[in-house]
């Protein structure tokens, strides 16, 4: 998952980083890498091409902000353009002028319709205090009715079933009538999965729509969809048309470029994301987050923005230089821990990054470890902080005692520190000016740190020398483990 964060986009960044201004030439390099990122994220080829044109115009029209690195500026341009394309204004569910709100879910086989019916019903009941009725109108797939009935039971929400042998459109009509009689204020129709090229079944869907007049048809799409997403979404929209899209299975590591394609060809918004198999795994769609995901950089933009407001640029720049020369000492280290703390609770900050957020769910840690690190450094003399090499065993004992830690903890801290110092200086030699980002592991290392400074470097999230300068996606586990071990204070 960590390699989500590296790859093409970092190439884009590197192509531009260190340049003073955005010029046609360096933008061109960045553009090429962004195009690659989009294609690897399954954004439709033609959509990616149009988008790139748009970005080019925007990027070259930009005034160069003095304070901001062109690389970051470029990424922000791309990100903003993508966000605009994905979102614009927020759209919710339609409203029913009178009577129950009728929603109809449709989509390809296995996309997640039935599960999403359950999730939506739950959401409407819990968050919107509605009284929904689910209608089981998939009469094709074996046990589809049972599936919805089971979900309804789990939720305490009524499910309308009709096993009389009536056809799906008729069952839907009966379901809506049933809802009116029983004063339900929302009806959700679960339809069978079908291929957009199956004329017969598409006609059936159109029939359901004609007879029940849903206020909104929701197209349920799998986030793992590839290039064919445009074909199916287009036909579904032509036949129905759709009100909006639910993007399912976003809890995986698919970059979800199909979302962009679907939005582009239908012109309809994405309303919700399914983020798990459980019935409360439904989230309202968040365009900036999705944009980051498609680009493969998580919420790094918002992180950058946030960081810009707490980090002293000049200081950061100075540190970056020192750091890359291997002159990084415990005072820098301490300052970084402080910065990191000011960004907010660690878990939340890191949670903004996909992959990491997931990894953190499994780890039991809090900011205590950072406090301990701080305490240990604070127990060092200024001389020790500036010249860590002089910290011998006697001094270590004193530091341990002074900070209320085991000697082992001090050993580890110093070891971690040295590893990081070494890694940083190697990176410096590698010539990645603006690097430092979130440490060294996996894809992390290639991330632009806020303001091109040492930024979030902090206490070496990474394993010794791993990732960083190589720019090559690492096996997800390695970075993960290093990080996890560190947070648990485990000896490596």
């Amino acid at each position: 998952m960590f390699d989500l964060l590296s790859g093409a986009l970092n190439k884009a960044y590197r192509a531009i980083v260190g340049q003073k201004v955005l010029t046609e030439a360096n933008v061109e390099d960045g553009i090429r890498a962004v195009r690659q990122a989009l294609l690897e994220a399954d954004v439709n080829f033609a959509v990616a091409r149009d988008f790139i044109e748009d970005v080019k115009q925007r990027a070259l029209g930009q005034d160069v902000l003095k304070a901001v690195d062109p690389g970051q500026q470029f990424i922000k341009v791309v990100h903003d353009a993508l966000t605009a394309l994905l979102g614009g204004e927020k759209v919710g569910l339609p409203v029913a002028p009178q009577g129950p709100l009728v929603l109809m879910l449709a989509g390809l086989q296995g996309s997640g319709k039935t599960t999403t019916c359950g999730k939506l019903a739950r959401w409407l009941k819990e968050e919107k205090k509605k009284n929904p009725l689910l209608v089981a109108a998939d009469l094709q797939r074996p046990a589809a009715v049972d599936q919805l009935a089971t979900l309804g039971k789990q939720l305490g929400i009524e499910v309308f079933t009709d096993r009389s042998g009536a056809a799906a459109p008729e069952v839907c009509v009966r379901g809506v009538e049933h809802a009116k009689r029983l004063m339900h204020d929302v009806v959700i129709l679960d339809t069978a999965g079908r291929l957009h090229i199956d004329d017969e079944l598409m006609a059936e869907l159109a029939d359901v729509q004609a007879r029940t007049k849903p206020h909104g048809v929701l197209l349920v799409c799998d986030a793992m969809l590839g290039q064919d997403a445009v074909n199916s979404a287009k036909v579904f929209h032509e036949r129905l048309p759709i009100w909006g899209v639910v993007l399912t299975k976003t809890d995986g590591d698919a970059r979800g470029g199909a979302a962009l394609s679907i939005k582009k060809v239908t012109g309809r918004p994405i309303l919700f994301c399914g983020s798990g198999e459980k019935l409360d795994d439904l989230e309202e769609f968040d365009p900036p987050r999705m944009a980051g995901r498609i680009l493969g950089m998580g919420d790094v933009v918002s992180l950058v923005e946030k960081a810009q407001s707490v980090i002293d640029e000049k200081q950061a720049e100075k540190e970056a230089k020192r750091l890359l020369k291997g002159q990084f000492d415990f005072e820098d280290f301490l300052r970084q821990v402080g910065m990191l703390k000011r960004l907010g609770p660690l878990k939340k900050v890191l949670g903004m990054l996909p992959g990491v957020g997931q990894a953190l769910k499994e780890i039991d840690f809090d900011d205590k470890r950072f406090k301990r690190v701080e305490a240990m450094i604070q127990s060092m003399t200024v001389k020790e902080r500036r010249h860590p090499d002089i910290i011998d065993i006697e001094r270590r004992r004193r530091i341990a005692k002074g900070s209320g830690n085991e000697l082992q903890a001090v050993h580890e801290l110093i070891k971690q520190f040295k590893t990081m110092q070494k890694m940083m200086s190697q990176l410096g030699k590698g010539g990645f000016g603006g690097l430092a980002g979130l440490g060294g592991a996996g894809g992390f290392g290639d991330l632009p740190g806020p303001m091109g400074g040492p930024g979030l470097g902090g206490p070496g999230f990474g394993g010794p020398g791993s990732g960083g300068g190589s720019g090559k996606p690492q096996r997800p586990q390695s970075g993960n483990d290093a990080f996890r071990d560190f947070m648990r204070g485990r000896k490596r």
Partner: protein
Amino acid sequence: MVFGKLFAGLEKTRKKLAAGLARLFGGGRKLDEAFLDELEEVLYGADLGPTGSKIVEELKHAWQRRELEETAQVPAFLRERLLARLRDAEAGLARAASGPTVILVVGVNGSGKTTSIAKLARRLQLDGRKVLLGAGDTFRAAAVEQLTLWADRLGIGIVKQATGADPAAVAFDACAAAKARGIDVLILDTAGRLHTQKNLMDELGKVVRVVQKQIPGAPHEVLQVLDATTGQNAIRQAKEFGAVAGVTGLVLAKMDGTAKGGAVLGIRAEVPLPVKFIGVGEGIDDLEPFSAEDFVDAILTFGRGGAVPS
């Protein structure tokens, strides 16, 4: 192979696609950069991803070396390059030397596992083999009922427990039953899971270990069902399922749509898995052995009166 079905599904929208390809190959177009760009687009459209770019690169080099000069030569070139990447991709099912053959079926959510199992059981049944199913998806609502319905339709046995049971326990029971009942082939269903969910992948690993322990040499096949509409994420899926469950082959489901399943080429660039079957519909007979030639022809839309003569 009967590729009628594969193309029947494509018939309606194929015209449109074919039009694009016809423009590309027909009408005396020149082989130039613009042509190569459009070709790359066509290959990307089939989810070939970077493999598509590589093939276009290869074409470009061949063109620069004057090994080929006009667009009419391109289809044969592409065909050859695609087939080269599918060498040994066709493969039959492994069989236990003695005792029951165990086939474990894995994959992400909704890819088509349970339906493919029913289809596979049907094939084996027609082959005269005694088949037993194991309802290893104890998680999803009515997953057990779904497989049970298929077993009933086929008139074959099924080993199951209640929803919420330990899937490893179901696997254990199913193996025991297979041995006791003199079963030829045991096919084990599993719950859909995203390869990023560590706990669920661990659970799958446990199922594999239970099967290994129960029947030496088993599972003889671990089939990963891949939805043909899947994009580049398919590669990660194959890697992770391969690492955890030791996948031995792919089943490419939902090939009856307009998706071409080109992600298989991306997968094979990293993991040399054979494709054992393709799914071409929701019916019990809609499973066919994979044919590399037909697959490539479908990508290039050459087949059955398509735009280009092959």
